């Protein structure tokens, strides 16, 4: 009856800057003492080191703060978060579905770090920002979560309302020789 496809706010698509499509997202918050048992129930070890990620198949956990993780699932299903919540029954934590709060771009290729450096003040060299590192930071005037998924590929999560602003700036940087 209804076309329940998830709308993307992005305007363009290129090899270097591409939409990552619908992704499951949840914010998990808990106390340090409970990290171990929650990790067991999630089937993914919540990273304790700052700005580090762990992945298990399609699922990843990104450290955003000492009590805050962004859980990602490569294939979004509407009930993914409620199924996760069922696993965590009885645990002292907060799990909130934010699958639609953000949208994601892949920034990839030999110029990936350079394109990001047009608006991100962080050192994105591999030694300072190795594969697997993630952080909540600013791209120009928008808050983003930046996650290095490969030597030349980044996952950039941005709040939906800022998506076109961030994409437009990235495309301008992409067009520079």
């Amino acid at each position, binding site marked *: *009856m*209804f*076309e*329940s*496809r*998830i*709308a*993307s*706010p992005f305007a363009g698509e290129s090899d270097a800057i591409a939409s990552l499509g*619908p992704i499951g997202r949840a*914010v998990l*918050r*808990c*106390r340090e003492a409970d990290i171990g048992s929650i990790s067991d129930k999630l089937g993914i070890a919540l990273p304790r080191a700052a700005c580090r990620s762990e992945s298990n198949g399609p699922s990843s956990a990104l450290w955003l703060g000492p*009590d805050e993780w962004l859980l990602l699932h490569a294939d979004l299903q*509407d009930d993914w978060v409620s199924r996760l919540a069922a696993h965590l029954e009885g645990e*002292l*934590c*907060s*799990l*909130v*579905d*934010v*699958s*639609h*709060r*953000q949208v994601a771009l892949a920034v990839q290729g030999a110029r990936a770090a*350079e394109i990001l*450096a*047009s*608006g*991100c*003040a*962080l*050192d994105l*060299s591999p030694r*300072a920002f190795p594969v697997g590192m993630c952080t909540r930071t600013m791209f*120009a*005037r*928008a808050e983003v979560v930046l996650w290095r998924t490969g030597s030349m590929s980044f996952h950039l999560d941005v*709040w*939906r*309302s*800022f998506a*076109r*602003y961030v994409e*437009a*700036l990235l495309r*301008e*940087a992409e*067009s*520079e*020789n």
Partner: protein
Amino acid sequence: MTTGHFRTPSGGRIDRSRPLRFSFDGRSYSGFEGDTVASALLANGVHLVGRSFKYHRPRGIMGAGPDEPNALIGVRRDQGRYTPNLLATQTELYDGLDAVSQNRHPSLEKDRMAVNDRFSRFIPAGFYYKTFMWPRKAWDRLFEPRIRAAAGLGIAPSESDPDSYAQRYAHCDVLVIGAGPAGLTAAMEAAKSGAQIILCDDRAAMGGSLLAANQVTIDGAPAARWLAGMLDSLAGMANVTLLPRTSAFGYYPHNWIGLAQKLTDHLADAAPGQPRERLWQVRAKQVVIAAGAIERPLVFPDNDRPGIMLADAARTYLQQYGVEVGRKVVIVAAHDNGYRTAHELKDAGIDIAAIADIRGDSPVAARARQAGLRVLTNAAIDGTTGKLRVASITLTSGGKRETFACDAVLMAGGFTPSVHLFSQSRGKLMWNEDLQAYLPDQSAEAERSAGACRGHFALDEALADGAEAGRSAAEAAGYPFRPAIIPLACAVAHPVGGGGHIGAAPTSDPSRPKAFVDWQNDVTAADILLAAREGFLSIEHVKRYTTTGMATDQGKLSNINALGIVAEATGRTIPEVGLTTFRAPYTPISFGTLAGRARRDLLDPARITAINDWAIEQGAVFEDVGNWKRAHFFPKNGEDLHASVARECLAVRESVGIFDASTLGKIEIVGPDAAEFMNRFYVNAWTKLGVGKCRYGVLLREDGFVLDDGVVGRLAPDRFHVTTTTSGAARVLGMMEDYLQTEWSDLDVWLTSTTEQWSVIAVQGPKAREVIEPLVQGLDLSPDAFPHMSIADARICGVPMRLMRVSFTGELGFEVNVPSGYGAMVWQAIWERGQAHDMVAYGTETMHVLRAEKGFIIIGQETDGTVTPDDAGLAWAIGKAKPDFVGKRSLARPAMTDPDRKQLVGLLTRDPRIVLEEGAQIVAPAAEDRSIGHVTSAYHSSVLGKSIALAMVRAGRARLGERLEVPMPGGSIAVDVVAPVFFDPKGDRVNV
């Protein structure tokens, strides 16, 4: 077309196989690839390039680099691409370049304002302060407009800039600023360690003084070949980034350096769309400043005629550009560089009429005489002649006065180390008595200076100093210690030598007033002496009074001479006089570079909801709410705001409307202590709020004043869905986190922003239920099952939904929350269903009117940071039995319960057609000179057929029924004070 008569037959680093045409003030000239505008003009014998700022005296090219005070030109590419105030000495020539001179009317040769020069004794330093004091009224009408017209250099472009500008952040281990001898060896030594290096230089070609070092060998090779090899090696290293045409303009805290890179200005045809300039914001672990040194002019009478220039500039024009600055040259020297220049120019066949050294005899003087040069020692410089070009100079030596005919006078006053960036970094300078220069002393940042900018002027010293600086910078950046490089063997035909003079040069005729210290701001030695006589002792005061050093060149040539003059006049040493502050930018940079991509649509993020595109298609007029773009109203058939809002309001009251409320802030509060947290944070009591129910919450600051409000729904015993105002979303979440982390870390509760998880589709009006009911699955919407102020998770159109039955309009209403990726789809489905009920889409203006008819406040409109809950009529919301909440204690202060506080009331104008002005003051008829309140909201209500207003009025609730007045420029408007609910006061319409 004029050809280059002053070009040497061979030599220089120009490409003689690539001639370029260009124009200056409409006349055509030719130059070569590798020229600057300055070198190409000089090659054509053109020295006269500008008129001075104040006296409009003819001025020529003085320098060859960023220190140039006179040769400011405008370059025009097309209507939108006109750049004023470019330094001709740094503007690379391209084919077809179109340049104009500045500050002259109508032409350089004939300038009307040159009359200022003849009346100069009436306009000394500080003449503004003395002259335009009286009559007072003349300032606005006469003096100020005239001065404003005469002030400023260059003409700002009138069209919007069509170019784009890029920005990039960069990080490196060692940033080397300046690619002269010291910078090159610093970069190479640091790079060998494996460190990441950025080497920048403001010129097109790297090499600095080596570009003009034609009588030098390094390690047995000519300097040019050594330089080429060095640059090749650096370019081949993966850890080295070379940035030519890049000026390090500012040094900011924690080794944060601003670099401005010119990308296309040197090209005749830049690829379309490519950025013109790029701002680099570099964070460097270590910085090596190798900024070199700037030659000082000598201060003597009439030292500003075209053809009088710096000696090293003349040498550079000869060696780097193959240009003779004159045929017959006199060199006035206080430094051995005058002799080096004389030898090199003489070797090129230029007639050196004399070297006038203000110092005594010396070995360099003897050597010059041996080479056949005429040298005057202990010379005094008495003046020059020549209208648009210097024609002669008069010198006194050994009691004999002599006038030399010449077409160029070269000044060698000594070198001033470029300590601008070091000083910007807050490093401490120290006066060096031997070198007569301020040198970098204590660093404040992780930086070091190398080469001429810290007094190592000789080539071999600069090369070695750079190498050591690079080596130690890499080590400090964490790379293993490596031994210092073996010093390079340099063979220099004529060393730069030493010496120098500070202040006014000796002259046998001190009555001649026009001995310029600051060429760009037209400040003479006499002006500075006048300032000293008038009691200005601090160099900062002298600077502001005389404006010396305050031009766009920031006194690169003038500051030290001004210091010397003040020191001598006041009987103090130079360190006692001090030094003025160096400020960014080192040389002017464009606004475009600083703005970067932040222009037009990208000036600031435009936040858009998932429904934004639909609203644009429907022809909505938008307004900015913070960064959000919100539909303000939806005009039909050319309606204006009022007609559109009247129609939208009536449709909602009579049938149904749809409104995008997605921008409302949303926070999900989860944890066993969620209700306790809410109790402490909001004024309301939350413990007894049932699951599936909503409550209107009010939040105060610690001072007891209303900060924010919004509806809160309880999803589970341990889970609340909190809404905030659109603009308050980030502030409220931040304040909540602050309290949790600092005051209430004992609570087991967490906060997550869900503002953008949900698209919020408000469906409001008597037909609201009929519209959405068929689309909803898994929820009974009947009034008994889902009454006003309910919340539930269910599905709509096959996707998840969080439904709230709430109303900001006073009508039956639902707020359909759906995951925002589904927002547009669900909106469209509701919209299509609504067509059978004449549904309207309404914007923020209608939302404002509808809520005002109901007396609902808007944070920031009725409240202004001084309004308590009771003032706003919200005392009912306070959980009186609660032991505490944020702001509770403040509410108990006597002033907060004063019955004379401003309280929320409604106002009705006696004439229902008059809509009051928001912000208008309110008075009582008996006391019209005392404001007792102000209008906070005022609209025409189409459903009521009259104007309504909300207002904050002193003791307002005790004044119901009183007549008050709103005084306006056209007369007072009579109003009646009424209760603030104008429509459906019993609230029956929400409960259907």
